[in-house]
């Protein structure tokens, strides 16, 4: 068998700009990173541009946004120049995206089974019957006990944790090589989060995928991912192995770590992050 290339995704000097009436807003500035068959976390506070990065890779940014990059390569596809028809066969089939809240990201007027089957029917042109079989198998794979029953449920009839497992099965059924998960567990309770993450973890390991895990939760990303990219105001300030996060150098990363209340290192007062304007210069 052919050995797959080391990097699934390479991003070099990507910027995303939004022209507005009062000038150009640069949401992402000169971001470079690559993703192999690993779990990469992107951490940042609200407005740091972390979700914009995810969307730009999928080419799902709003039409007025301008994406610039030296290189934006996904496997054999140049995401900067690929025509929209080609993107249609990439999205959902080769790169898929898991969003934050299944309540809003699932179609409310379609049964969950049909929604999952739609992906295979669209991308692989299989019969409805086969799609149904694949869907049931996939639902079972994400630990849904009674897939026959769940297939015919509507999104409002399932719980948050089950909804997110349904999202995961929908995203994985076409066997993509890269998954972008944008805050996939922020809307879930702690115990449910644990289950959903362990399913995602198993599937990513089993199928040898690349995963971009976008989150604001430092502890979660540190314990779940292999590598962590820390973003601040649209820039990557630091990239570090998750295990070495405690030795992070950049003052912003250090500030975030110290601002976090912790069961293991209790402190009387939390450190308040002081933002240094120098961080904005590249």
């Amino acid at each position, binding site marked *: 068998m052919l050995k797959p290339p080391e990097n699934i995704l390479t991003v070099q000097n990507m910027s995303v700009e939004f022209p507005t009436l009062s000038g150009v807003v640069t949401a992402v500035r000169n971001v470079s990173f690559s993703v192999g068959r690993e779990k990469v976390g992107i951490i940042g506070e609200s407005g740091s541009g972390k979700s914009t990065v995810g969307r730009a890779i999928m080419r799902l940014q709003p039409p007025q946004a301008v994406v610039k990059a030296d290189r934006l390569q996904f496997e054999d596809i140049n995401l900067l120049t690929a025509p929209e028809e080609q993107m249609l066969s990439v999205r959902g089939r080769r790169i898929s995206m898991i969003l934050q809240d299944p309540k809003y990201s699932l179609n409310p007027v379609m049964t969950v089974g049909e929604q999952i089957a739609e992906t295979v029917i669209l991308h692989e042109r299989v019969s409805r019957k086969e799609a149904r079989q694949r869907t049931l198998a996939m639902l079972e794979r994400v630990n849904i006990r009674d897939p026959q029953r769940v297939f015919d449920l509507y999104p409002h009839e399932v719980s948050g944790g089950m909804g997110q497992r349904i999202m995961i099965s929908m995203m994985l059924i076409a066997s993509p090589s890269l998954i972008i998960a944008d805050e996939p567990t922020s809307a879930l309770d702690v115990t449910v989060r644990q289950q959903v993450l362990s399913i995602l973890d198993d599937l990513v390991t089993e199928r040898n995928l690349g995963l971009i895990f976008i989150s604001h939760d430092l502890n979660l990303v540190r314990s*779940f991912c292999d590598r962590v990219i820390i973003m601040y105001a649209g820039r990557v300030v630091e990239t570090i192995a998750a295990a070495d996060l405690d030795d992070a150098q950049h003052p912003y990363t250090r500030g975030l770590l110290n601002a976090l209340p912790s069961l293991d290192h209790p402190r009387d007062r939390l450190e308040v992050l002081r933002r240094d304007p120098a961080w904005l210069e590249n």
Partner: protein
Amino acid sequence: MTMIKVDHLAVSYGHGDSLIRVVNDVSFEVAKGETFGLVGESGCGKSTVLGALAGRNRQWTGSIRIDDEAIGQKRSISQLAKQQMVFQDPFGSIHPRHTIGRTLLEPLEIHGKDNRQERVEKALKDVGLPLNFRYRFPHQLSGGQRQRVAIARALILEPRILLLDEPTSALDVSIQAEILNLLKDLRDREKLTYILVSHDLAVVAHLCDRVAIMQNGGFVEVATKAQLLADTVAHPYTRVLMDGSRGYVASRRSVGVKAS
């Protein structure tokens, strides 16, 4: 001195056939100046307990004593002023078309307080906001500043108790640290008693002296801060929640806990 004493509290919603009992037989005491935490997953009844204490939900049985005064289903206006709430989402809890000054004036008008301008200025100063913020609208403020306004609105009636319903879960980590520090300073300065509802045990352990862990409308355990920090909690569910606040624990399959 005991500030809050709750005995056999049960709270329900709805009537007749659709009656749901959300909180079942809960008893606890909170001393003056203490911070008591309520932790649990969504639907476990933690906000409902808070609602009954605040007087928002009147469909309860059992007994509640606040500041050595038995509380009935209907409260006097001075009883209502004694405890004030701070809500989770500062984007939803402040009127978008009222200036901050008007938002802060409203409780004073309802409770017929005098020296209103001075009180508004003092409340803003207490939470560390500049005085000219009273002329601003909520959309001109950041999330952390809005949560400060929500705290100022709760403080303006000079309550003895603050009921905090997930006060930082809608905020970024760095802003959360500011708000938690502010709450700690205010408690020590004004000798306030807090009840803090949260799903994050790390936040609760930071601020609280004792924590009740709730599941299905009842307490499974009341743990002290020392127990949490030394990891000597008794109930397995508490441990699950503690693991959760540390992040992802690989290869651990859901620890025999029913998903609600």
